[in-house]
């Protein structure tokens, strides 16, 4: 059976199962009510896209810097990196958001919710990225750096021509996974009243009391973002496979 057909069969079977479950539940559907609020869904979705893209860029940057700190021989740099990673990975994002927005941002006078939300989300994701990058860097055999030095490459050239190309290929799968998590984690930004996708769906639910009709489009909206990302990641992996 060709692969795409197998995927289709499984999805259809699953959908049939779900439809069967729904048919047995005493639930009156109210799609019309929810359709009235389609503007909210769209706005929320776009906000989530913007949040995720911004956090994606910043967290990659943060992750690279933190990974270099972790690898550094400078004691202070390594300590900063380690404390940052352990602190962020050891506390819930919710707690970081609340403290970040209501305590730290207020203290430094940073008022813009969106900016604070992106920063907190980026710092959160960046810690995981840092560990991923560090693992990728560590997986490159020491002899590679030796060979680069032996040829006469400068440290910067070694990083650019030898280390980074290999590291990128190694970290691609876990980074893609982290980005998918980022998109889903962005839903938590609703607790500081950022009007992203999940909050908007919840609001529609509050107004229409149509829970499933509000949340099914919500799930679909997230899949619309995460599925292409996963597919892209798999395609990139395949393309770079004969390397490293």
């Amino acid at each position, binding site marked *: 059976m060709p692969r795409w057909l197998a995927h289709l069969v499984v999805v259809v079977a699953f959908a049939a199962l779900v439809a069967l479950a729904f048919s047995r*539940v*005493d*639930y009156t559907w109210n799609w019309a009510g929810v359709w009235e609020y389609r503007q909210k869904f769209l706005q929320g979705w776009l906000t989530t896209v913007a949040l995720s893209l911004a956090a994606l860029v910043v967290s990659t940057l943060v992750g690279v810097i933190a990974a270099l700190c972790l690898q550094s021989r400078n004691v202070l740099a390594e300590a900063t990196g380690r404390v940052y990673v352990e602190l962020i990975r050891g506390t819930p994002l919710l707690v970081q958001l609340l403290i970040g927005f*209501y305590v730290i941002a*207020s203290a430094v006078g940073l*008022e813009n919710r969106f900016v604070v939300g992106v920063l907190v989300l980026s710092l959160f994701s960046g810690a995981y990225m840092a560990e991923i990058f560090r693992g990728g860097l560590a997986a490159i055999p020491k002899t590679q750096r030796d060979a680069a030095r032996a040829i006469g490459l400068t440290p910067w050239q070694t990083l650019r021509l030898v280390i980074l190309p290999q590291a990128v290929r190694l970290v691609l799968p876990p980074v893609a996974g982290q980005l998918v998590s980022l998109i889903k984690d962005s839903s938590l930004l*609703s*607790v500081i*009243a950022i*009007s992203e996708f999940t*909050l908007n769906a*919840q*609001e529609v*639910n*509050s*107004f229409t*009391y149509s*829970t499933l009709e509000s949340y099914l489009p919500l799930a679909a909206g997230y899949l619309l973002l995460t599925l292409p990302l996963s597919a892209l990641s798999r395609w990139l992996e395949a393309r770079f496979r004969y390397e490293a």
Partner: protein
Amino acid sequence: MSHRFHRILLSAFFVAATGFLAGAAAGLAAEPLRVGMELAYPPFEMTDPQGRPTGVSVRLAEALAAHLGRDLVVENIAFDGLIPALKTRKIDCIISSMTATPERARSIAFSQPYLKTGLALLVGAKSPVQSSADLDVPGRVIAVKKGTTGHQYAAANIKRARVLVLDKENAAVLEVTQGKADAFIYDSLSVFRNHARQRDTTRALLEPFREETWAIGLRLGDDELRRQVDGFLESFRQAGGFERLGEEFLPEEKRAFKERGIPFYF
């Protein structure tokens, strides 16, 4: 096995069987009354230091269950999840200080109202807001709690100011005390209580700009239960039950509101 031991074993079996059947029969006879509420709204729905549900609504639920001859089960559900829970039969009724509104009445049925109150404003100390007319001004920020009538009011009436939709009452109050929001639209009682706790950073505009009544929520078509609940509310009021609840949980508030002539009564 000895004959004597045999008899003991048999007796034990019968006792156990009888107990089991009796229990089953008792269970079948009266199903527990499952009441949904969000235990985050003192003094109506809250938990005591030991974590047990308590408050005005809990007492009301206990009295209702006793009146119906059923055991009480309190389900702690987030406010905006109460109606879905009722519709999908996870609970039998909602006693959670829920306002009876025409929009909600399209999805669920309401009992006779049991409390009259209204929407009021918790305003930041430095904010220029003086009344509900000052809310829909560009540049102002209004906080509401998701799923409440305050949220519905804001969605319908506030187009130019910014509306912050928060999950929890505490978060909304924090926004006001920190000056991030000009006002929090909530019921007058809670506004009073929050202002009492945050005297320096807030002002309370207690005069309700929209009157509301609270009722018990029931499934559409569940007429039998609705009759029983309405009957209960009538007899409970006659017997002075609400007076007692007011004295137990809201003595100060009752007095303060009476002094200012603000409606808040059962």
